[in-house]
């Protein structure tokens, strides 16, 4: 039981140490990486089953009871996120091995990648606000390194933006921690949820907003998202895929966790979050349709879709949160696979700029299918996963009579569809064109890359098929979030 909870953090860390010790033996590093991540996937899946059946599992690090020590808490939401994250990490590392490039050129790739995995898992599992900060730092430091691997001029430039903005977020997080501890004398989330309620209302909402800003930077909501589209597209495509699928969602997870757990209903800034959600989805999609590069279009869509997740949170209802959870599940898989497709496009054509692409559908029909399915899903076309997720949010929004955000979400769907057709019409339709140059490292295995991508696309189709049970699961997770008591009791029980 304990192993299931700590495994997804510790196994990748051990793997990281081992991969580093194995230094220059690339095959050995690969084996370590694959084994560690596959183990994490299995452990996370078992954990999800266990948590869904038997309730929340809390593990005390060092045996110290909450609120003294750090408690790792696996509830349904955390377990769901963990399963998705580890699966994405595994799929993408397979892709990265196929692609070569960053994976092959840098001794530290696997180590840093595994550290990233551990950081993400830690962020999902921790039940302590400061430990969440540390987990974020682990994840972020690894992401800085992955983003700048190679040190190309554009990477350095975008790396600066990314690192500096992330550091500001970290500094703000520390400010929030200082304030939290000053006001409550505790750091355990469960303990905080009882203590925050005793604070004066103004202080409480100040804290709520500060935390929204802190995690809003990470999750790229309006008006804090600008850094994302500038920095993501420059990384090697597997790295971008992981970032796109996971990192912002860790921010969203933290938003959901803190806003639902720490604050009583009268402090929850629902109206504000709904306004932010609308602006995020609209401004994000407007950015997307202005772009000329596949990766940049997709990056702006990340922003736009964060808006949908925040919409679910902003409703602060079981239906809304269930919709948000379902949306996250769908989004992580689809977004990751789309960025992997972007990488395949680059590998085939030497570029991801729309003006320099044409006719891929005829020369690479499989690639066209691999793009079309997740793209339609992203645009919320039935019967793909994006439709069910969007429908859940729409339904929740109508149920809460939040008309503005409902209207925005529908309008944004159309613009999303438009920008997907922009990629399709420019890159896939038209007369085929000779590849400009190959960005694929020598010895790259395109079949492995396509295989990993196809696996994720299949997974997204599976999500669509299993939407019914998944919605039930999301609803149970949302019920726990709204109720709060199970979490608090699981952590604080003697």
């Amino acid at each position, binding site marked *: 039981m304990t192993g299931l909870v700590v495994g997804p953090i510790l196994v990748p860390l*051990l793997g990281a*140490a081992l991969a*580093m010790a194995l230094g220059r033996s690339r095959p050995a590093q690969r084996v370590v990486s694959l084994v560690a991540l596959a183990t994490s996937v299995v452990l996370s899946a078992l954990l999800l089953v266990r948590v869904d059946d038997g309730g929340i599992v809390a593990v*005390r*690090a*060092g045996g110290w009871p909450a609120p003294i020590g750090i408690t790792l808490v696996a509830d349904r939401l955390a377990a769901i996120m963990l399963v998705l994250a580890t699966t994405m990490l595994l799929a993408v590392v397979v892709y990265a091995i196929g692609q070569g490039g960053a994976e092959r050129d840098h001794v530290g790739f696997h180590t840093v990648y595994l550290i990233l995995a551990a950081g993400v898992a830690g962020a999902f599992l921790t039940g302590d606000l400061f430990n969440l900060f540390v987990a974020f730092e682990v994840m972020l430091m690894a992401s800085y390194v992955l983003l700048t691997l190679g040190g190309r001029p554009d990477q350095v430039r975008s790396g600066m933006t990314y690192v500096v903005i992330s550091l500001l977020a970290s500094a703000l997080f520390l400010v929030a921690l200082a304030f939290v501890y000053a006001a409550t004398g505790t750091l355990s989330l469960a303990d905080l949820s009882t203590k925050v309620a005793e604070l004066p209302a103004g202080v409480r909402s100040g804290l709520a907003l500060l935390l929204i800003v802190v995690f809003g930077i990470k999750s790229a909501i309006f008006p804090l998202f600008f850094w994302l589209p500038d920095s993501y597209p420059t990384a090697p495509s597997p790295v971008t895929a992981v970032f796109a699928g996971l990192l912002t969602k860790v921010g969203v997870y933290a938003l959901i966790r803190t806003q639902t757990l720490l604050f009583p209903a009268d402090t929850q800034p629902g109206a504000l979050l709904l306004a932010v959600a609308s602006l995020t989805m609209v401004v994000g999609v407007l950015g997307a349709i202005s772009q000329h590069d596949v990766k940049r279009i997709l990056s702006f869509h990340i922003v736009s879709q964060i808006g949908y997740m925040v919409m679910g949170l902003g409703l602060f209802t079981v239906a809304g949160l269930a919709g948000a959870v379902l949306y996250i599940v769908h989004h992580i898989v689809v977004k990751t696979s789309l960025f992997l497709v972007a990488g395949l496009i680059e590998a085939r054509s030497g570029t991801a700029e729309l003006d320099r692409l044409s006719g891929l559908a005829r020369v690479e029909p499989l690639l066209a299918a691999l793009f079309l399915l997740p793209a339609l899903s992203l645009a919320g076309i039935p019967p793909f996963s994006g439709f069910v997720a969007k429908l859940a949010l729409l339904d929740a929004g109508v149920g809460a009579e939040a008309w503005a955000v409902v209207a925005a979400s529908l309008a944004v769907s159309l613009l999303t569809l438009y920008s997907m057709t922009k990629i399709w019409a420019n890159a896939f339709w038209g007369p085929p064109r000779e590849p400009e140059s190959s960005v694929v490292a020598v010895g790259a295995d395109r079949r492995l890359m396509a295989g990993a991508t196809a696996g994720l696309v299949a997974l997204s189709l599976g999500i669509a098929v299993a939407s019914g049970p998944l919605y039930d699961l999301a609803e149970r997770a949302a019920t726990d979030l709204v109720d709060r008591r199970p979490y608090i009791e699981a952590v604080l029980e003697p």
Partner: protein
Amino acid sequence: MRYRRSVIFDATVTLVFDGALVLSAYLLFAGHNQPGGGFVGGLVAAGAIALHYVAGGGDQVRSLLGVQPWTLLSIGLALAVGTAVVPVLFGANPLDQEAYQVELLVLGKAKATTALVFDAGVYLVVVGLMLMILEGLGLASDEPLDDGEVER
């Protein structure tokens, strides 16, 4: 590159270096009861290495410990993570500590805890990081370029 050095200067550096290493070891072991700990210990050792670099230039540091910074980092990380993993394997909580009475020949009885192993990991990582910084920003940047970039 070779600097002209005086024997006295070298001797001083060596002396300080040795002293700092001893101090860092003391800080590591004393940390649980006195000010100190793995961090401070590691930082002091790292400072000593940095001093050696400043005094002696790049070549000295490269072979100073006869060990790659990679190795230090990986061993350090493995030690720290190991203290978290091992208790779990025995069905306890991660990072559970055990205390042992240890007979030390000179210092008498002491209580050693598994926290020391953890702290040693921290120590190694800090030292390894400093070595890496010196290797990277100090040494590597003195080497010639080969990728066609213009040296500025």
